[in-house]
């Protein structure tokens, strides 16, 4: 049992070459055939951040909290959510949409969510670059704490890989999962303090909201880019996050591993 679990995970590493070539193709397929090509990867986040800036800094004149412009504060949290939602939304249908690979080739389908994550990280890193550009434009201080974002990114990848495995496998058997996930992501978006500050909530509610693992990551992004606060300042939150994430990761992998032999029968 444990041995086959580790073999399941090890196969992902053994297939890294295939993973990267498929991820490269996945990214390229978004831009292939368009004249501007990869430039589009930059246009999208730039326009979005520009609109935030226009609406919140110029339009509503929301006052900077603690000298942090709202648009920076928002974009930092938002970037983490976007990549998470992109990975989860994209993972759900992966097995179903790659049925031809699963039924007709000797293919380790557990690499599909990994490929999705890697290709999503490409767009995400562009977003981060644009975000850093915005921070510099706002004449905010620069710091090595920026690098801490890699830690939170890793947190995000482990969490979303576990979820991706579970959801993509279950969706093969219950196709409603795709719809349910889309709805849940909408709810979670507003349930996670992205557009609003958690401090506006009463302390008791704050405790409940902090149970959401995405809260840890969104908060971590802001601390890396704005507040320059290391993650070991929240030892309990960090421990809680990893406990939840490891459980999700292991359960996701087990669900996938258990259901995988039946994919070819049902697809």
């Amino acid at each position, binding site marked *: 049992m444990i041995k086959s679990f580790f073999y399941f995970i090890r196969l992902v590493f053994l*297939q890294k070459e295939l993973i990267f070539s*498929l991820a490269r193709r996945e990214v390229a*397929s978004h831009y292939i055939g368009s004249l501007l090509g990869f430039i589009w990867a930059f246009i999208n986040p730039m326009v979005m951040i520009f609109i935030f800036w226009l609406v919140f800094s110029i339009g509503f004149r929301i006052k900077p909290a603690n000298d942090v412009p709202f648009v920076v504060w928002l974009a930092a949290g938002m970037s983490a959510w976007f990549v998470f939602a992109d990975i989860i939304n994209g993972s759900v249908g992966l097995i179903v949409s790659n049925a*031809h690979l*699963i*039924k007709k*080739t*000797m293919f380790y389908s557990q690499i599909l969510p990994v490929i999705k994550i890697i290709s999503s990280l490409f767009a995400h890193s562009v977003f981060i670059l644009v975000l850093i550009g915005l921070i510099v434009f706002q004449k905010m201080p620069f710091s090595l704490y920026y690098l801490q974002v890699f830690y939170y990114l890793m947190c995000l990848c482990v969490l979303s890989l576990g979820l991706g495995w579970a959801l993509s496998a279950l969706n093969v058997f219950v196709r409603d999962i795709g719809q349910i996930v889309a709805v849940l992501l909408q709810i979670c978006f507003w349930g996670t303090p992205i557009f609003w500050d958690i401090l506006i909530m009463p302390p008791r509610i704050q405790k409940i909201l902090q149970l959401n693992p995405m809260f840890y990551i969104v908060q971590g992004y802001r601390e890396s880019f704005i507040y320059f606060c290391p993650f070991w300042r929240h030892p309990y939150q960090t421990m809680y996050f990893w406990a939840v994430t490891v459980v999700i990761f292991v359960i996701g992998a087990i669900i996938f591993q258990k259901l995988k032999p*039946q994919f*070819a029968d049902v697809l």
Partner: protein
Amino acid sequence: MPVLCAQAPYIRFVTMKQDTIISVRDVTKTYRLYKSHADRLKETFHPFRRKYHDDFNALSNISFDVKKGHNLAIIGRNGSGKSTLLQIICGIMRPTSGSVELTGKISALLELGAGFNPEFTGEQNVYVNAAILGLSRDQTDARFERIAAFADIGDFIYQPVKTYSSGMYVRLAFAVAINVDPDVLIVDEALAVGDIYFQHKCMRRMKELIQSGVTIVLVTHDMSAVKSLFKEAVLLDRGVIIKKGESEKVVDEYYYQMMQEEPGHVIPGFGDIVKEIDGQSIKDKKTPRDMVFRKDEEFLKRTKDMRSGTGQVRIQNMELLNDSEQPITRCSFDDWITVRGHMEFFTDCEMVNVGFHIRDRNGIEIIGTNLFVERFYIPPKKAGDHLIVDFRFRNILRDGNYSVTMAVSESDDHGRFNTRTFDWVDNGVVFSTVSKTLKHIHTMVYVPVEINYI
């Protein structure tokens, strides 16, 4: 340890007898057939475990071994479980019971171009497809020239795959798969792609692989390939092994099964197949015939779009018969076969000419004649008359699929040229033929040849 090996729990990498490379033991695959999705859920949650499904055995108790360097062809009719068996061997599907043991690096080619993305160039797709088949980038670099040469699609390899013709597409896909250099190659129905030239290239490459010690497991309907390339074969029918062993015998069994299954057809004597090609005159063998005019609506419907001519005489039916006057769709080399045409006249005709020819699947006319050529005179016909003409000949064709075309026309008074074509039916009847006596006919037809030497 190979990187790309099946890892499903029922597949074990045990030390088998040294020379066995694939061992299939008692494999059974049962599908649960539900009438609806609701039934599936009802069964899952039913408190008393009521059964809502019907069991369907796609495979029952399949066992066989493939030894190192040996090859196996799996044959059988559509739906006999061949592809399911391959999927189980590859570890794509899990059997309901039984086990599969294998060693070595497996490359499976169950569908050509699975994983091709039409937006990318052939070159890019080659790399990704090779990666799916288990090659690293360096390994693909080393093989790229070979793959490109094999596919032989020129500079199109640098164009998006969506611009390819379907022939180019399968050629590229096959070129990748066959150049992966696995220990075991598992192929499903992939030989029947491309033009004849490419098919030959594939066959040659398969032979090379076999000679270099690659174990090939192939599902195919191409019986001549089975007989010429494979030592051993397994015949499946409804998920059960009917026969396994020497490929020649298994193929014979297959044909026997096929012919038995066709209701009303006579099995051309399998016991006394060794007829000699001795150039007996046709007239000696002619049997009394039951030549009654029959109009066949099904035939007319089928050939509606394959006709040309004035329509003043109509070919109302075409038949392909064996010597027992039974209609056939398959025949053996050296059988006597008869092409019969039923014609109805709607006009008077002084000099009537009827002809036929047999085309192979490339549309090349191989056998044929007409009444002029044979100097065969038929008395004048009146409107309303019927005419039945038999062309009887010995089947000298090599294995393959053929079609029969028939035409009726009027000629000038001396029978030198046609003045008008009444009716011309392309591909009115199709049939396939197989050689049972001669091992191989390498030419389109075989005619008796006298050999002398000093």
